[in-house]
C-alpha cells in the first residue's frame, strides 16, 4: 500500500520533470537560442562597434581647424624617372617610401612639421576625387608621425594624390545638432505626457464612480423608468444637438466686435447666475407649490440655454482674443495660439456637452414623469403599459446597436438593420417586463458597473502604441496623435485604479451621510470624495510617471515625442545619435521617478 503510493509519487515527479524538459526544449526551439551566433567573430565585432558608439553619445563637439597636406603619388610607377618635386620644408609636408608602388602594396608614410598632438585621417585620392580612407595618423609632440598604409587597387596613368587632414580643436565644447534636437523632443515628450495625464484624469474621475461596486450596488430602477430613460436618451441627444446648432448661429450673429461680445458675455453670465440663484433655493423645509416649481423649471431651462450661449460666446471671444494678441506677443505667440485653440476646442465640444446634458435631462425627466404617472395607475393597467414601454425601449436599443454594426460592416439591408432588430428588441423588452411584473426592481447599477468594467478592461488591453496607429491615421503623424492615444489609455487605466480605491473606502461615513437624508450625489461629494483624495493624487502622479515613459516610445508609431527621433536614428544605424536620445530618456525617467515619489510623500 505504502510502496505503491511512493511509487506513484516518484512516477509523477518523473513525468513532471520530463514535461518541464519538453517545455523548455520547445522554448529553445521557438526562440531560436543560438550560442554559435554569440561566439561568431563578425557578430562580436559589430557588437563592439555598436556598444562603442552607444558609449559616445553625440552630445558635444568641438569646432575643428582642418589643415590638409597632400603629396602626388603614382600607381604603378611610371616608365622612366619619377619626377619628385622637393617639398617646401618650411611648412608641413609628407614623404612616402617608396615614392611609387604597385596597387595593394604597403607603403610607409611620414609627416613633418605638423602641429603637435593632432590627429586625422589619411586619404588616397584618385582622379575621380573620391576620398578613399586608408588609415589614421596622430602626431607626436614634435609634430612628426610615421605610419604604413595599404594602397588601393587603383592603377592609373595620371598622377594621383595622398592627403592627410590634421584636425585641431578650436575653442570650447559646444552642443551638437543632435543634442539640440534631442532637447526639443524631450521637452515635447514631457508635455505630451502632461497633457495626456490631464485629459485622462478629467474623464477617469467621473467614470471611476460608475465602475465602483459599492456605489452602484444599491442603484435600482423599475421597468417603466428604465424604458423611459432608454427612449429619452437618443431623443435628448438629438434635441441637444439641434439646440446647440441654433444657439451657435445666434452666438455667431452676436460676435462681431470683441468688446461688444465681452459685454454680452458678462450680461449673459450674470443672467445665468441670478436665474440659477432664484431657481435653486439653498434650503427648503417644505415642498413648494406646483406653480412655483414649474416657474423654477422654466427659469432653469432659460439659464441652461443662456449657459450654452455663454460658452459659445466665450469660445468665439477666445479665438478673437488669440488672433488679436498674436502679433503683439512676439515670442510668446504660443500663448495666443493656446487661447485660439482653447476657443476652437470649446466650440467643438459644446455640441457634445449639450447633447449629453440634454440626453441626461430628458431621460431623467421622462423616467420621473413616467413614474409619477404609472404610480397612479391600477395594478391591472400597469402591466400592459409596462410591456408596451419596455418593447419600445428594447426596439430603440437594438436599432441603435444595428446602426452601429451597419456602420462597421455596411450591410445596408432594410430587413437586417431595421425590421429584425426592432422586432427582436421589442420581444426582449416585453419579455423582461413580464418577468419583472412581481418584483419590479432592476439592478441597473450593477448592469452599468459591469458594462463600464468591461469597456475599461477592453481598452486597457490595447497598448497605447497600437492606439497611436489609429490616431495617427485620424489626426496625422505628430505629438497630438500621441496625446490622444495616451489619454485614452490613461482613462482606462486610471478609472480602474480609481474605482478600486472607491471600493475600498470606509463604509461607515457613507452610511452616516446617507442617514442624514442626503441624495446619492451628495453622498458621493461629502462621503466618498474626501476619502479618496490622497490615493487619487498618488495614482495620478504614478500615472504621469508611466505616461512620461510611454511617451518616449509612442513616437515609434508616429505619435511624436523623442521616440520618433530614436527610431529614426536606430534605423539609420546612427548609434551615437540614438545613444544621446536614450541618455535623455534615462535622465527624464529617473528624474520623474524621483519627483513623483517625492511629491506623493509630500501630499499623502
Amino acid at each position, binding site marked *: 500500500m505504502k510502496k505503491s503510493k511512493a511509487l506513484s509519487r516518484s512516477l509523477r515527479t518523473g513525468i513532471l520533470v520530463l514535461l518541464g524538459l519538453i517545455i523548455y526544449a520547445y522554448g529553445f526551439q521557438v526562440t531560436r537560442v543560438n550560442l554559435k551566433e554569440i561566439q561568431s567573430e563578425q557578430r562580436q565585432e559589430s557588437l563592439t562597434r555598436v556598444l562603442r558608439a552607444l558609449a559616445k553619445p553625440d552630445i558635444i563637439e568641438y569646432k575643428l581647424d582642418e589643415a590638409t597636406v597632400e603629396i602626388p603619388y603614382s600607381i604603378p610607377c611610371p616608365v622612366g624617372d619619377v619626377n619628385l618635386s622637393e617639398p617646401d620644408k618650411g611648412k608641413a609636408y609628407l614623404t612616402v617610401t617608396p615614392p611609387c608602388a604597385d596597387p595593394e602594396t604597403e607603403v610607409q608614410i611620414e609627416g613633418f612639421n605638423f602641429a603637435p598632438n593632432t590627429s586625422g585621417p589619411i586619404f588616397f585620392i584618385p582622379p575621380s576625387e573620391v576620398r578613399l580612407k586608408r588609415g589614421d595618423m596622430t602626431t607626436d609632440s614634435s609634430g612628426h608621425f610615421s605610419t604604413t598604409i595599404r594602397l588601393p587597387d587603383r592603377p592609373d596613368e595620371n598622377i594621383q594624390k595622398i592627403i592627410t587632414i590634421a584636425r585641431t580643436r578650436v575653442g570650447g565644447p559646444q552642443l551638437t545638432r543632435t543634442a539640440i534636437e534631442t532637447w526639443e523632443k524631450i521637452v515635447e515628450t514631457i508635455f505630451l505626457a502632461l497633457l495626456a495625464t490631464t485629459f485622462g484624469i478629467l474623464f477617469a474621475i467621473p467614470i471611476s464612480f460608475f465602475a465602483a461596486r459599492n456605489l452602484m450596488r444599491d442603484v435600482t430602477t423599475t421597468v417603466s423608468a428604465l424604458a423611459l430613460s432608454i427612449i429619452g436618451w437618443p431623443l435628448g441627444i438629438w434635441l441637444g444637438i439641434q439646440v446647440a446648432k441654433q444657439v451657435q448661429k445666434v452666438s455667431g450673429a452676436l460676435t462681431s466686435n470683441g468688446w461688444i461680445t465681452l459685454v454680452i458675455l458678462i450680461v449673459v453670465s450674470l443672467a445665468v447666475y441670478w436665474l*440659477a440663484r432664484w431657481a*435653486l*433655493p*439653498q*434650503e*427648503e*423645509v417644505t415642498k413648494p407649490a406646483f406653480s412655483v416649481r414649474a416657474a423654477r423649471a422654466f427659469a432653469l431651462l432659460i439659464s441652461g440655454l443662456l449657459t450654452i450661449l455663454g460658452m459659445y460666446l466665450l469660445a468665439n471671444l477666445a479665438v478673437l482674443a488669440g488672433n488679436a494678441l498674436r502679433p503683439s506677443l512676439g515670442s510668446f505667440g504660443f500663448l495666443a495660439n493656446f487661447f485660439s485653440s482653447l476657443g476652437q476646442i470649446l466650440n467643438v465640444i459644446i455640441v457634445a456637452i449639450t447633447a449629453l446634458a440634454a440626453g441626461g435631462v430628458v431621460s431623467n425627466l421622462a423616467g420621473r414623469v413616467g413614474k409619477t404617472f404609472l404610480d397612479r395607475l391600477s395594478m391591472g393597467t400597469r402591466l400592459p403599459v409596462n410591456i408596451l414601454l419596455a418593447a419600445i425601449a428594447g426596439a430603440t436599443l437594438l436599432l441603435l446597436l444595428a446602426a452601429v454594426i451597419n456602420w462597421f460592416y455596411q450591410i445596408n439591408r432594410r430587413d437586417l438593420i431595421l425590421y429584425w432588430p426592432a422586432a427582436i428588441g421589442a420581444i426582449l423588452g416585453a419579455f423582461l417586463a413580464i418577468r419583472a411584473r412581481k418584483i419590479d426592481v432592476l439592478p441597473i447599477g450593477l448592469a452599468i458597473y459591469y458594462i463600464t468594467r468591461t469597456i475599461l478592461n477592453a481598452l486597457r488591453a490595447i497598448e497605447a502604441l497600437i492606439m497611436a496607429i489609429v490616431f495617427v491615421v485620424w489626426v496625422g503623424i505628430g505629438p497630438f496623435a500621441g496625446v490622444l492615444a495616451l489619454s485614452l489609455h490613461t482613462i482606462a487605466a486610471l478609472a480602474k485604479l480609481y474605482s478600486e480605491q472607491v471600493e475600498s473606502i*470606509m463604509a*461607515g*461615513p457613507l*452610511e*452616516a*451621510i*446617507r*442617514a*442624514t*437624508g*442626503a*441624495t446619492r*450625489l*451628495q453622498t458621493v*461629494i*461629502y*462621503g466618498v470624495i*474626501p*476619502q479618496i*483624495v*490622497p490615493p487619487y493624487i498618488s495614482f495620478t502622479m504614478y500615472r504621469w510617471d508611466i505616461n512620461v515613459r510611454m511617451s518616449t516610445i509612442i513616437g515609434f508609431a508616429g505619435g511624436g515625442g523623442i521616440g520618433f527621433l530614436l527610431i529614426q536614428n536606430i534605423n539609420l544605424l546612427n548609434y551615437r545619435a540614438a545613444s544621446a536620445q536614450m541618455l535623455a530618456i534615462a535622465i527624464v525617467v529617473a528624474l520623474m521617478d524621483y519627483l513623483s515619489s517625492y511629491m506623493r510623500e509630500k501630499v499623502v
Partner: protein
Amino acid sequence: MLEIKNLSKTYEGGVQALKNVSFQVPKGQFLAVIGLSGSGKSTLLRCINRLIDSTSGQILWNGMDICAANEEEIRLIRRRIGMVFQHFNLVHRSSVLTNVLAGRLGYVNPAWSLINRFPKEDIAKAFRQLERVGIADKAQQRADELSGGQQQRVGIARALMQDPEMILADEPVASLDPVLAHSIMQYLEKINQEDGVTVLCSLHFLDLVHRYADRVVALNEGQLVFDGLPNEIDDLKFKEIYGKDAERVG
C-alpha cells in the same frame, strides 16, 4: 409615536436577524435596546431609517409606513431621524465643521452641494451645536485629529443639525471608556429632556440602562424577549435576555 409591527428581517445568506418584532415608542421617550452582540439591535435601528430594508412588517411613524416609502419619501423621513454610531462614522479627512454641516444635507439643495456651499444660517447653527457639545474651538480641525469622546460629540452635533424628532443611537458608547460614556449619555439625555427628542439607544451595560432609560426592550436572537421598565429586569429576566451562563457585572 413610532410603532413597529411584526417586523422581520432575513439577510441574503439566510440569517434571520429579526423575528416578528412589535413594540411602540411614544414621542419623547428614552428607550434602551439591549441584547447580546448579534441579537439584532443594529438591524432593528437600521430598519427604522431604512439603511437596511426589512423583509416583512411595518414601521409606522407619524402615520406613515416607513417600509413602504419610495426613495424621495425616505429622504424626507431620514432627515428628521438623527443617527449616532458606535464608531462615530465621521469623514476623517473633512473638518469637524463640514462633518457637522453634513447633517444638513437632507435640507440643502443638491445643486449647491456640487460646489460645497451651505447657507450662512446653517454654518451659524453648526457652531451653536458644537458649542452645545462643548467643542466649538475644534471646528476647523480635521475630524481624525480628535479623541474618541470628542468624535462622538461631533456625531451628536451632526445628528442635532437635522432638527431631529428622533435619534437612533447604535451603541454610542461601546468604544469609549466609562467616564466618557457617561458624558456622551448625558448629552443624549439632555437632548431627550430639553428638546423632547425621542431616543432609541442600544446599550451593552445595564448600569447605563438603569441610569438613563425610561424604558427597555430586549432582543435575543432576533426575538423581543422583554419590554418594560429598567428596574423590572431581575435575575431571572436577566438570564432570559443574556442566556443561562451570563453573570451580572457592575
